[in-house]
């Protein structure tokens, strides 16, 4: 079995589609609503979650045979919290303005259900490399939805993308105005709902009987 065998690649691509943590498993919704007003913080948040899921999966999988079962949740929390604090510190040191926008949500990655879910469901029972891929896949599935949602929210809510103006001034002069609803959290929920709708109508096997 090669490092990138078909089964291993499935671990990466599954969460991007039929196993998506946000749209199929509906996990990690709260931060998805909070940090998707602008593309840049959503991207940084996505990358942070990928790093945390990948490395916590890796570490827990390495330790899976030596972690005492009775305290495994505590061990998982310690590993996740350590990684999150590290990510937070690095963001504060190198992308200060983004870290200010993300504020508490970086710290709240600790409680992101996706991470604990993957540790319990996958890393405890699989080899490190597979777990690492599974972590990247699930993190990327989360990041993907964040980026799609924030793309639309920033475009229609602020008329910018990545902070650059994309809707020409002429539109505003002609009476166009930014949609204030887009910058409110409920709109993220509606957008996620639309994504789920589109995804389900394309993959009929996702629909519950």
């Amino acid at each position, binding site marked *: 079995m090669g490092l990138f065998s078909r089964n291993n690649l499935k671990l990466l691509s599954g969460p991007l589609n039929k196993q998506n943590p946000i749209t199929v498993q509906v996990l990690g919704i709260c931060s998805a609503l909070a940090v998707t007003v602008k593309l840049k913080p959503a991207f940084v948040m996505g990358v942070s979650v990928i790093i945390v899921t990948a490395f916590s999966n890796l570490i827990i999988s390495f330790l899976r045979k030596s972690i005492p*079962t009775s305290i495994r949740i505590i061990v998982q929390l310690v590993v996740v919290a350590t990684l999150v604090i590290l990510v937070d510190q690095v963001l504060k040191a190198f992308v*200060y303005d983004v870290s200010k926008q993300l504020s508490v949500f970086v710290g709240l990655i600790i409680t992101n259900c996706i991470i604990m879910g993957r540790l319990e469901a996958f890393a405890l029972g699989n080899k490190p490399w597979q777990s690492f891929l599974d972590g990247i896949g699930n993190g990327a599935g989360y990041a993907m939805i964040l980026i799609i949602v924030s793309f639309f929210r920033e475009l229609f809510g602020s008329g910018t993308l990545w902070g650059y103006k994309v809707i020409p001034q002429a539109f505003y002069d002609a009476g166009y105005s930014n949609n204030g609803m887009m910058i409110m959290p409920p709109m993220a929920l509606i957008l996620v709902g639309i994504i789920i709708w589109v995804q389900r109508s394309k993959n009929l096997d996702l629909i519950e009987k």
Partner: protein
Amino acid sequence: MKNFSNRYIFLFSTVMVVIVALFLAFASTSLKPYQERNIEIEKQQNILAALNIRVLRQEAEALYSRYITDSYVVNSKGEKIEGIDAFKVNMKKEMAKPRMERMLPVYIATLDNNSHSVVVPLRGKGLWGPIWGYISFEEDMNTIVGSMFDHQGETPGLGAEISLPFFQEQFIGKKIFDDNRNFVSIKVIKGGASPGNLYEVDAISGGTITSRGLEAMIDTCLVAYTAYFKANSIQNK
């Protein structure tokens, strides 16, 4: 399922915690200089913003040293306290002290048209957490040149609006002393300030508690400077 002895569990958790602690301590100390520099730059940015000079992070340091020509600390009687760097004064600690004992930082700016401005820091409480800012005055130590407010976690769309220019620009040209040189501060009026009133600005609708906190912040912070303002005011009329 494998059974682990209690001894093993204790040993495992102890070793884990020690490793994690060492690791995080190392990370925190090695990243600290970068983080502190970011906070310093942000402070410079904020002080400049109170003078209506809104700059990007990259330019903040250069422009700060160009415009802020002097800074010092005064006491409540308006006398200079020597040997303390105004930039390093921790406003949170100062605000916890009784008013007469606070150290009051003052930043003097020399603007492009060679006029001088004085910038003072503010700190108070909003609805959910601390709010802070800077406010700058003309040489008469009365007329407001500009202001800058920020907050930790006020409600987005409501109280958080205090950090937006539309709110802050209302303060430009307002006054804090009445004609008889009595300190009156600035009132933040719910439902809208009366037009032309030099001592009032509009509150934020839906952000009443934040607006009130801001009003109290301006009042309590500035009243401490009254002696300094009166002694150093240059009347140009």
